[in-house]
């Protein structure tokens, strides 16, 4: 299709920047917008801007929310002793929809993936450790991993090293979910979050269990391993959600690899 209008062509161009949208789909969308009422188009444009201008991140759990702390972190009925660790805000919403979980969350902002330029320091893993122990090594110290063999670039990464720089692009391209900028939590926000949780009764604020709800792929496995090693020195139990069968799926039609894994990871009933 040949567009004679530069504005239409520009719109198509912008649409193709979105994930899963190819040129054809972008043209279809642009055509559709052309035919819509101006009012309806305005609503879309407003919603797009609002998402960037109004939405912020909870400084405790880092979920995208309209206020800080987010409704979950400020809900005193939610159990603060259990933290469920998810990759993205959208994963948090998926677990919330089950209505089964009464603890709190921590959004990592992705998973460790060297191929995408994402290392442990590009995720909110230190922030997680600090929720468990506010004295956890501040930015200047090496992590208390068996890595006493020093982590010379542990900080170099956040200081604009090659892999640190590529992490930003990878975050935008690789994770089209809600989390576009994994590093937007400023130090002030972080300390606010720490104050908020420590202002409660000391024992009540204690974290007893960390549930890792990362995806069951190699990046999720590795991230889970990294976190469990990092948290090993602390008096906290670290568990990982079972990979299982999709609920509502017929056993007969479950894909066999999933079924075999489910059998392998079976637990007591």
């Amino acid at each position, binding site marked *: 299709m040949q567009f004679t209008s530069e504005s239409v062509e520009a719109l198509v161009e912008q649409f193709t920047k979105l994930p899963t949208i*190819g040129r054809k789909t972008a043209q279809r969308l642009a055509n559709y917008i052309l035919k819509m009422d101006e009012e309806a188009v305005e609503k879309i444009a407003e919603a797009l801007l609002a998402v960037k201008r109004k939405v912020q991140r909870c400084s405790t759990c880092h979920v995208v929310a309209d206020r800080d702390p987010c409704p979950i972190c400020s809900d005193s009925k939610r159990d603060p002793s259990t933290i469920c660790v998810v990759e993205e805000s959208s994963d948090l919403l998926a677990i919330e929809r089950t209505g089964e979980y009464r603890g709190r969350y921590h959004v990592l902002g992705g998973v*460790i*993936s*060297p*191929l995408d330029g994402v*290392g*442990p320091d590009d995720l909110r893993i230190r922030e997680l450790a600090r929720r468990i122990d506010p004295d956890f090594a501040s930015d200047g110290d090496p*992590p208390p*991993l*068996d*890595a006493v*063999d*020093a*982590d*010379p*670039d*542990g900080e170099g990464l956040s200081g604009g090293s*090659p*892999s640190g720089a590529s992490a930003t692009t990878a975050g935008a391209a690789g994770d089209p979910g809600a989390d576009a900028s994994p590093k937007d939590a400023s130090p002030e926000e972080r300390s606010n979050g720490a104050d908020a949780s420590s202002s409660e009764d000391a024992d009540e604020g204690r974290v007893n269990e960390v549930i890792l709800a990362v995806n069951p*792929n*190699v*990046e999720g*496995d*590795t*991230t889970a*391993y*990294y976190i469990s*090693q990092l948290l090993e020195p602390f008096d906290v139990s670290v568990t990982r959600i079972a990979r299982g069968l999709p609920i509502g799926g017929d056993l007969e039609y479950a*894909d*066999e*690899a999933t079924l*075999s*894994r489910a059998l392998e990871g079976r637990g007591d009933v």
Partner: protein
Amino acid sequence: MILRSLRLRSFRAHAETGLEFAPKVNLLYGPNGAGKTNVLEAVHYLCLTKSFTASTDRYAVREGAPYFEVEGTVAGVREAPVDVRIVYVPSEGKKVFVNGAPLDRLAEIVGMLPVVVFSPEDYDLTAGGPSERRRFVNNILSQARPVYMDDLLKYRRARKQRNEVLRQYKGRRESPPSSVLKPWTEEIVAIGSRVIQQRHDFLNTFSDYLTDAYRRIEAVAEKPSIEYDTVADVEDLRAAGATTEAESGPPASREAVAAAFRDALDRKRGSEERRGTTLAGPQRDELVFRLDDLEVRRYGSQGQHRTFGMALKLAQFFYLRDRADTDPLLLLDDAFGKLDRRRTDVFLQLLASDDVGQSLITATQHRSFAEALDFETSAHRAFRVDRVEQKARVRPADGGTWDDRAATDIEAGTPDDRDVVPDS
């Protein structure tokens, strides 16, 4: 399984071709380049979502066409015949449909329609490099166990990630800190030892199949064997206390394999950092084929290479049949071209027997097949494949209409070729 019918659209030389197959031997004959192998490739796409040649999907699309489509009706895998369709659009990738419903992942189809390919390239199984032999094992195990393929794909991904860590730190002339490398080491050890364990246990079982298959095509008393060469001595991979048995040994212990793999990585750490890549693991596995004490790759005669290659594929057939509970489909692409008369006859008799199921064969001429098999019966069917006006044309043939003339002769000789070869 029985492939009843096949339809190709814009697939390589085929613009639009439909075939109805017989339940036993189906011979596709005609001149080179006419499009015979394309039919086998199309079937392979249905079974394993890719070609058995090294060619890419993009080249499978007929020139000038926007996509290709292959559809087949298969009996004998579920209660009712199953319709399987694969569509490839270069900008969107491949999609597989089973009875009209799209599969979430292409991998789900693998193993449902078991298939074994015989081709002149089987020579490389014994004569070529180690990757040929790993590919052979990967093919069988992926068809036999969906979990294996899942592990294999995950292992490749994890190894790529680990290599990236090694590469990045090599570039900075630093050793990767343990906090960064160790999680990836543990991940490849966890998945890689599952791969090794499954290969080990498979080869234990498979050697009996190989011995049987070899005896079917070669009367001499040589005994074929396979030695598995992996991260550690195979004996060390078994659970502590397990004893070695003569024929098929005890299964490998996951813990023993993981420990051996971790050990091998530890020993190579220095070189890994210097070269910026992972240097131990199942990606470096090797299989050593022997006939009695003779190592086939180094000392085998041409005839021994061919027989061993055929025996491996035949053993694959019987192994998959036992795992899948159905006869795998046999695709023989020009597999008889370099075989001597005796081996050809032995093999054709096997194809006609009840020991194997359906087969699709390509050949440049029909003669040796017409003598060995009765194409007048409904068990076998022959197809004449020609290239006409840049398109492949496939027509059923039978004993009365054998025609080995080149297509151009037919075109020149008769104004309407439908008079010469009636559609049956």
